[in-house]
């Protein structure tokens, strides 16, 4: 279940991972995008951390909401509205039922899809969210799964987002947004919510 503590921990951990892998995320975004995904995510998550430092939170839904507002307000690019909307929808779901992790993740994915209109197989972050949720449902998400799902975007041909401009040439590269989503799910795994 999501608690205030483990949700704060989730976002702090996510922020640390993004900070550490910022250059990697931007590098992934260079051959098939515009090279800013690491910078964008880092900017958004720095704001998330600042909000968490400044505020006090009484339920985990509020933490998600603060994270959503920070991501929407500071990230920019495509990833800002996508993560922002995901966290906003998760906030509502968690507010309704903090125990239902799967439900919250599904709400997040629905938000991403409402905003970005991508389905599985289009080489976007959706391609990590979908199988992650399946694994969570099956009761056995682990770090190797996450890595494998991120890796699976490599052979895909992008048909959404900036990478779609490359057509065939998008094949053979990891999707940067999937990589950052991978970091999010690893942070989730490392926190207590899933156990």
């Amino acid at each position: 279940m999501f608690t205030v503590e483990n949700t704060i921990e989730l976002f702090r951990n996510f922020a640390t991972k993004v900070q550490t892998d910022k250059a990697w995320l931007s590098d992934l975004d260079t051959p098939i995008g515009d090279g800013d995904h690491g910078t964008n995510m880092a900017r958004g998550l720095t704001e998330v951390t600042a909000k968490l430092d400044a505020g006090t939170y009484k339920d985990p839904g509020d933490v998600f909401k603060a994270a959503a507002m920070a991501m929407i307000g500071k990230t920019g690019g495509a990833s800002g509205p996508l993560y922002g909307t995901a966290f906003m929808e998760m906030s509502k779901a968690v507010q309704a039922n903090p125990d239902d992790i799967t439900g919250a993740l599904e709400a997040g994915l629905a938000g991403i899809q409402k905003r970005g209109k991508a389905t599985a197989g289009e080489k976007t972050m959706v391609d990590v969210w979908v199988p992650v949720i399946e694994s969570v449902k099956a009761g056995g998400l682990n770090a190797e799964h996450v890595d494998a799902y991120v890796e699976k975007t490599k052979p895909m041909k992008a048909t959404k987002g900036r990478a779609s401009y490359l057509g065939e040439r998008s094949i053979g590269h990891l999707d940067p947004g999937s990589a950052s989503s991978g970091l999010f799910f690893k942070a989730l795994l490392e926190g207590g919510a899933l156990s």
Partner: protein
Amino acid sequence: MKKIINSPEHVLDEMLDGFAYANAHLVKRVTGTSVIARKYKNDGQVALVSGGGSGHEPSHAGFVGKGMLASAVCGEVFTSPTPDQVYEGIKAADQGGGVLLIIKNYTGDVMNFEMAAELAEADGIDVAHIVVDDDIAVEDSSFTAGKRGVAGTVIMHKILGAAAESGMGLQELKTLGETLVASIKSIGVSILPATVPAVGKPGFELADDEMEYGVGIHGEPGYRREPLKSSKEIAEELVMKLKDAFDWQEGDRYGVLVNGLGATPLMEQFVFMNDTAKLLDQEGLDIAFKKVGSLMTSLDMAGVSLTLVKVADEKWLDYWHMPVETTDWA
């Protein structure tokens, strides 16, 4: 990376302050935001708002002023601005006649501007939007995010700006904008890549003798690499691509824009204009207006883009020629 800056993180903020300082007679920076708004107001008329990632200067802030944009929302370099910033841009622009957003077709821009529109509408401001997708380098199919918005956007600013200034209403402007978008097509060539300050190295690599057709204004890969060609050969390639896309007839009426991508001197842009003019003439087109300059740039990218507008209405020419008061439209 060789740039005259202080630090990549502060480029946007310092650029906006420098811009607002230099052009204080026409514009202001809305305090605490990355919005450049004009001082001029035309009460009750529609206000145009555009913007997107920075690095395309003079787009879009240079076109803020009487007769063009009411405000420009400036994101981080090559990164769409956030909804709250766009929302501030809408509020600063609004003159009581509604606001028309001119959005370049990138996933991020479209999402952020649409979220801002929702916020503004909740506030009681009438908002409509147009998505510009003039770059024919990319196929517009269910397999792409659609064509990209590039230099043709500036033509939208000019014509819609004049129409708004003349008192056209929001819905009519949106309709005109949609007709215009469908009439504008662009295609570019890059001979040197751009370097995003925060990245510190070029967004792609080109050999010393290479160029690439169809590169996007954020360095998105194009459709073909070749050894560097002459201006004439490049003009032939781009004009033929546009011919395919427009499927024009002799005698058809067009406007033409040769746009420098940032580091390309005007000298080369005019040489390229000359070669293009000859081809358009051979095609028997009637060229009603022309413009050359670095208007929609990509930082220090070298190269040019060619935009054609099929003129569907005589009125567009009046709008094109209407005087403006902005810092970068001469």
